[in-house]
Structures are given as C-alpha cells and as structure tokens.
C-alpha cells in the first residue's frame, strides 16, 4: 500500500492547502486531516506534516496550545516509532513546544528545551530568504536525499521564528548536529539570521533525525513563478510550462518523498 501523508490542521492553521499541494507535487499521496478527525484514523498515516498558521491563535506562546491537542498523541506515538514528522513555521513551533524537537535523549521531552520565539525586531517579518543544508544530508531522514550543502529559496513569514534556548542547549544542538538548515545568502555564504535566530538556525531535527521543525516555508517557493527575484525565472520569460514547473523548495519535498518511500 502506498504510504499516506496527513497534513494535520488545528483551528487557526492557514497554510494547509499549499502544503498539501507541495506534498502531492512531489508524488506523495496526501490528505488534509482536521482537528476533529478520529484519532485512529490519524494513526493510520505513515507521516505527518504540521502546516503554518496560528494554531489556537498562538495563545500563551506560538504553538503552546496545539502542542497539547488530542491530535498530537498520534504524532508523538508516530515519532517514537520512527514515522516522519515535518513541522513548517507554526508547525515547527508546535514541534518544539511538544518537545518532539530537539528531543535530546532519544524521546520527546515533557517540557520544551528550545523554542522559536519573538523575532529580534519584535515584529512579523515576511521576506524571501535562502537556507543552506548545514549537516550531513543523512543526519535527518527528510534531507537524506538532498545534495550536501544545497541552498534552497524559501519565504520567512513569521513573528516568532528566532531560535532561543539556554546556552548549554545551544551548545548541544551544535555538537549533536541538530541544526539542519541555516540562513545563508543565495550562494551559501553564512549570514546573520534575518530574525536574529540563534546559530542562524532555520530548522532543527530530533536525535533520531525523523522529525524536522523548519521555520521558513519551502511550500511557498516550490514553483518557479513564486521566485520573482531568481535569474531562472527571468530566463524562463515567455515559457509558461517552465514557469509553472517545480523549482527551489520542491527539492525539499522530493527528498521528503524519497525518505517516505524508503520507509
């Protein structure tokens, strides 16, 4: 049977439709599953994606309430047995709040040890960014099929995307290669994170590497027409097939699909 992916929504999610589309474009059989769904039905999926948005209005802290939602039981159980779990933006915040990432010690933590919190400028920031794969691709199952050090275009679009944690935790994240993507320029040169994120971190994995929490949006940069600044888009002027073709962040989803196929 084809492994199925569930894009899970909570009240307040807002990027679910394009996330489903991006997964499908990479060949994954993907369903949209709402917060009122039956838990056993949710358990039947092979992988989970938590999309962007403002789940439960981001009350208390971004992701804090959703981390305790009923649906997260299924996600935790799945993560424990090695299912792939991807959180994008608000989904990433939820995974950190739920302790699924960084998940030191091989399991999720009862309390979050790190969080994606208020940007350094204390304001929402929507900006085209680049991120670079900062670990060995195989460190994280979802990136195993990506070329080493690949640079991908994405959109940062968040008010709370700055990684913050105790210095000991940050040291551990570095030492154990949890920072899967870092903000960079388009050539992969290191830059200071536009939101002030510690370690210039854009994405964090867990110890086992089956959970990935990524702040910028690959699904908003996975078709060429979405990349207004890119030379490739200009080169494709007048070619409608090409401009509607997968590009950029699509590689991220094809790597996800490859990992799903491997099981």
């Amino acid at each position, binding site marked *: 049977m084809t492994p199925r992916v569930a894009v899970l929504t909570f009240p307040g999610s807002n990027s679910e439709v394009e996330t489903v*589309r991006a997964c499908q474009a990479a060949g994954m059989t993907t369903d949209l599953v709402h917060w009122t769904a039956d838990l056993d039905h949710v358990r039947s999926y092979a992988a989970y994606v938590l999309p962007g948005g403002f789940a439960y209005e981001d009350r208390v802290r971004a992701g804090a309430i959703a981390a305790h939602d009923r649906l997260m039981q299924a996600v935790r159980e799945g993560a424990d047995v090695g299912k792939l779990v991807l959180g994008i933006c608000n989904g990433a915040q939820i995974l950190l709040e739920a302790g699924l990432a960084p998940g030191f010690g091989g399991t999720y933590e009862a309390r979050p040890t790190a969080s994606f919190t208020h940007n350094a400028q204390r304001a929402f920031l929507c900006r085209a960014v680049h991120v670079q794969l900062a670990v060995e691709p195989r460190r994280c199952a979802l990136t195993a099929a990506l070329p080493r050090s690949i640079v991908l275009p994405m959109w940062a679009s968040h008010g709370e995307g700055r990684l913050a944690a105790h210095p000991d935790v940050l040291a551990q994240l570095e030492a154990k290669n949890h920072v899967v993507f870092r903000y960079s320029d388009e050539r992969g040169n290191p830059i200071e994170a536009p939101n002030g994120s510690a370690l210039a971190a854009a994405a964090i994995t867990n110890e086992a590497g089956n959970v990935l929490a990524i702040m910028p949006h690959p699904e908003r940069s996975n078709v060429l027409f979405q990349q207004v600044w890119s030379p490739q888009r200009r080169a494709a002027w007048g070619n409608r097939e090409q401009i509607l073709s997968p590009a950029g962040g699509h590689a991220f989803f094809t790597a996800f699909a490859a990992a799903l196929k491997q099981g």
Partner: protein
Amino acid sequence: MNLDAFPVLAASDEEISALAKHHGLALSVEDLREIAGKLGRDPGIVEVHAFDAQWSEHCSYKSSRPLLRQLPTEGLTVMLGPAEDAGILRLGEWDGSTWGIVIAHESHNHPSQLVPFEGAATGIGGIVRDVLCMGATVIGVADPLRFGRIDRADPKSEHAKYVAKNVVRGIGAYGNAIGVPNIAGDVYFHEGFDDNCLVNVVALGLLRDSDIIHSVAPPKSVGWDIVLVGKATDRSGFGGAAFSSVVLDADQSEAQRSAVQVPDPFLKNVIMRASYRVFEMLRKERITAGFKDLGAGGIMGCTAELVSGGGFGAEIDLDRVLLAQDGLPPAVIAVGETQERLAWVLPRSITPRVLAIYNEEFSLPLVAQGAGAAVIGRVTEAREYVLRHQGREVMRTPLQVLCGELRRQRNLGWISHTAEDNDLPHWVEATLLPEILAHRDVCSRRPIIERYDSVVRGTTAIPAGYADAGVICPIPGAPLGVALSVDGNPRYGKIDAKRAAELAVCEAHRNVVAVGARPIGLTDCLNFGNPERGDHYAQLVAAVDGLAETARGLGTPFVSGNVSLYNESTTGEAVPASSIVACVGSIEDVSRTVTSRFTTAGSAIYLVGERQPNLAGSVFAEVRAFQAFALPTVSYPQVKRELEMVLSAITSGTVLAAHDISDGGLLVTLAEMTFAFAAPGTIGARIELADLAKTIGTAGFFFGEAGGFVLEVDPKRESDFVSLAGEFALPLTRLGTTIAQPIMQIDETIFSIAELFDAWDQPLQEVYP
C-alpha cells in the same frame, strides 16, 4: 403589535430631537417624521434603531447614489456589476470553466482613527466577508492608507505615528492570521489626515462563473431557513453604521468607541474554511442558496436585505440567536455589529448538513465560546420584516420602507478655482534626488510590506514592492494571473478633487499595465467630508465626474465601490479629496510579466509619454516649499494608446522592466528601477539629458509627476519597439542605457546606487523599526 413606541406623531421637534439624542440615534427629526409618516404610526424602539442603521449614509448612499449612477458599470469583462456585496470580473477560461475575480472595496476610517489596531483589523474582516459571501475563495487583500504627518516634532505627529503604527499592526494581525496574502497597497502622509486617517481595504476572491452565490434569497425560497453563522452576538459595534456617518467628535469619542467592533481573526479563519466546505457541498448537490455578510445594521441589516432583494419578507426569532451574554436588549441583538457573522438562506432539507459542517466538522462552538451556526428565522411571502423577542413582536415593518431607496438632496457649494502658476522653478540640478527619495510619500514601503504576509496560499507571483502592481496566480497549474493596484494622491486631492480622481484612474491603469496585465475593472472608495456642507459636497460631485469621464475614456468599468463621508478635521476641514481607485488586471500568461527592476546591463532605457512643466501637488513643490496650482493634465486618447502600446511591448517580450512615473517624478522612477526592493541593485543607468528636458526645463523633466512609463528595452528588439511606438503614434524619448556599474549618472551628476538606496530605504524604519 405590542412594542415600546418612540413617540413622533404627537411630539414636538424639540422632544423628538431630545429623545433621539437620548437613544444615541444619528437620525434627524426630518428622518424620524418621514419614518412615522410612512409607517402611519409611531415607530417602535427596535424599529428606530433599525432605521438608524438602514437610513445612515453608510447603508443608504442617500447623498451619493444619484452621483454614482454616472459611473460606467458595463463591459465585456463584467460578470456581476455593483449590486451586491462585491462585483465580479471575468478573468479567463481554464479547465473547461470561466473564472471570475470577485472584488470589494471598503473603508474603515473612523474606527481606525479611534482604535487603530481594532479598526484596521475589522476593516479586513469585513471586506473578506463581502468577498466570501459571493461563494468565492478569498485570494488577496490590499490596503490604501492615508495617515497624518509623522515627521514633525509635535503632539499631532506623535498621534499620527501611533495611528500609523497600529493600523499596520492591525492589518497584519488579521490578514496574516486568516491566511490571505496582502499583495498591494499604498501609503501617504498628509497633515489633512491628522485628525481623520483613511484606512481603505480591497479584497479579491476567485470562483467559477457557475458557482456564484448571490446575496439575496433565491426564487421560490418562501419557508426556507435563515441561518446565522459565526461569533456569539454581544454588545460590541452597536450603532456602527450610524457612527461612520457622523463627524468624529472629540467629546464623544468614548461613547463612539463602543461602536467599534472587536476582531476575531482566529474564529474567522475557521469560518472561512468551513464555508468553503459548505460551498463544495452545495455545488455537489446543485443547491442554490443565498449568503450574505453581516456588516452595517447587524442581523437586521443583513437579513432584511437578503429577503428584500428576493422580493420576500422575513420572520426572525431573536431568542434563537446565539448570545455571548444575558440581558441584551432586543435592539442590540437585532442591530449590533458583532463581527465575524454571516447569514445563509437555505432550503430546509439541507440545513442540518450545513449546521453539521460548521458546528461539528469545524467545531465552531469549541473554537470560540458561544460561536456556531443556528437557524434564527425563515423567509416569508409577505414583504414585511418581523422580529420577535421573548414572545413579543418588537418589529413589523414593510420592507419597501426599511430598505427602499432613500435620497437626500444636498446643496452644491462652490469650489475655489485654481490660480495661475507664475514664477515656478524651471531649472534645477539632479542633485536634489536623494532628498526627494527620502520624502515620506516616496521612500521605501518595505518596513510596512514586510509586516504583512504577502505569500501565504503559495500563489503570489509578484509580491508587493517588486513592481507597480501585485500579481497572483490563483488557479494552481493555470498560467492565468491577476494584477492589482490601488491609487489616489492626496496632494492632488487637496488642490483639485476632479483632476485627482482622473489621475488616480490613470495611474491605477498604468500600474497594472506595467507588469503586463490588461486592466479589466475598477473599484473606488470615495473618502470625502461632510455632504451636508456645500463646499465638501461639491468636491464629491466633481470627483465622481472625474472618475466617470476617465473610466469611460479608458473603457474600464467600475464593478464595486464604497462611499465614506464625514471625514473631517477637528476644525471642520474636509480631508484632502480622496477618490481611491483600485484596478484589476488580467494576465493570460504569467510567464509574460515583468517587474520594475532593471534586469540586464546594456539595455536601452525609454520614456513613454510627455513630460509636463506642471509641478502642483509634486513632492518637489513641497520640498522646495513653493505654491503651485496647475496639476498634470490628462488626455484620454493618448493615455489609452500608451497603455495599449506598453502592454503590447511587454507581452511581446521587447520590454525587460517597466515602471510608471508618479510620486517624485522621473528621476525617482529611474532610481527605483536600480533598487532590488530589499537591497541596492547591481545594474545602474547612464542617462543623457534629452531635448525634452531642455524644452520644458529640468524641474518638470526630473521631478514633475505627470504620468508615464520608463521601460528597459531589450537592445536586440529595440527597432521592433520603436516601430511599435510608431504604430501607436506615441512620442518616445531614449533616455540612456543600463550599465554594469552600480551607479546612476545623469549627464555629469553621478550617484552611487547604494547612496540613493539608503536615502530611500531608511525613513519609514523609524516608524516601523
């Protein structure tokens, strides 16, 4: 009928006026006498509140409706003209369907001045419901904003800054949460808005022509259910419609604050998604229903218009309305403007399934306390509007009186004629450019744009700030694109309401064409002063003339719009005449679009259109502190030919980048083409002073704001381009070439692009750090 009467028939004018004031009504004695006369009895308390909303300027357009009839509203691109909550334009064919773009345009000026965050947020909330209720997916919003001066060290500036900051925060908080990209907008700062900001909002939706849901009870719907969906009804927003139709009063600002609604984007996010599911179900079952947003006049305003439009009546049981608190008076339940609510007219057989989608699948009652969908009444054959509360009938009103057309004759006052311009500066050095670029109406809007989510939904092809119009590609897999621009320059409005309206229509067209889109429709929001004052009303009349003439001249219909009156300063001066125009463009093939950034070194740079020596309303005039009265002039046949030629040149691939000339003039346009939005660019320009500059003077040539285009032309296609301009009989000026060095050279004057970029990029960061 057993109701608490509001005595009119036997009362004196003084008594009526005192009682109206006691109840916080905006209705005049004349209005109340007319109501009693038409009813043939004293109205009830609930009824007077209903009329207070329905007969407000906001709902009835009583001062503006005859004027608005002048606007052209027909054309091949019109799918639905201005009759319902939003207009619909034909985008194109895809996948065997004809697709339409729904557009609505509103203002939320008074609420935003008093409580900027909530006022601006509920502005987005309201416009999104207007689009949603047509059966559309909401695909984009845009905000034209007009704030007071923020650059002076005085308390007024401090307050203007507070308003400017929090309006932007409110727009971001709401739009970002519901997941609708903010794709366009503009911002001006003018002392005329110190006491009365303008917060307009435009929203776009997408649907197939077969899926339009009308805001009226469908034919043969007698006996159908009226279902209220959304937030639990509370005390907020009581008197909102009436409040927007009076002048803001410093003494009453506390009382008026209670008229402001409370936004809940979180709940709205879920209501939108649940409604999309209902649309899907109705399509599948081939059921026709009516759907309408609750705005002005609350439950009463919405449901009365729903049934009145279909030629029916309604009976509503206020006890079935989901309430947030006990003890609400019936008038508050009926007319209060609690946000995040919509009403359906549904065949009874389908009602349980619709309720289940809202209440169970999307669990509205769990998302917000007391929220949900519930049947509150039914459609009746008698054309009467009946409200019951606790077993009593509190309203029974003929709908032709409540919703019938209302007119108020306004006296046309006198507008002073503009004086002649003498002794204007004629020659000026290009070295003034950095100062013009740093002007608050010219400088980069990035600090605002980056606070809005411009790319959620994954459909944005050209985000705000990268070109003259925002572009989205709303149908996955389809090459069809939609461009949107909003325009309206208050510095022009201050001088001449009519010309300002004409120039706004022209600029909106140019902006849409500059990305390679064909203008297909317009909306307007007319933000003016007090229509009861002849001089203010005359500006409105002149502006509508200007809009109508220009739209006819350019052949583009208006399909929706809004009128916001009573926008005044505390000293009784009207805000600068502000006809804010939105233009929608359609793109057949999104791969054939361009941005406003230079792409390649070695390209030819061309100016399309004539420069004029007229300097009135220019940023240059303000920076140099001189008075001028002659605004740029408009010639429709020429503007139309320019638009056609530039569109043809872009879509045929001869043009690599395009930017219109507006605030700041030609040199600003050129400088902006070297910028990469968030950073100085790498491609510069070398400009040689054209003969034109010698004829009209460098002041008008460099900094005059007459409209036009600057185009980067592919050097390999230059002769094609020149002959195309010849076919359209258009004057062309070759300004120079793009170069690989990051400099801009104007004859002997050389700027580094980094220096120009810093001047342009910094100023608004002080307000939006």
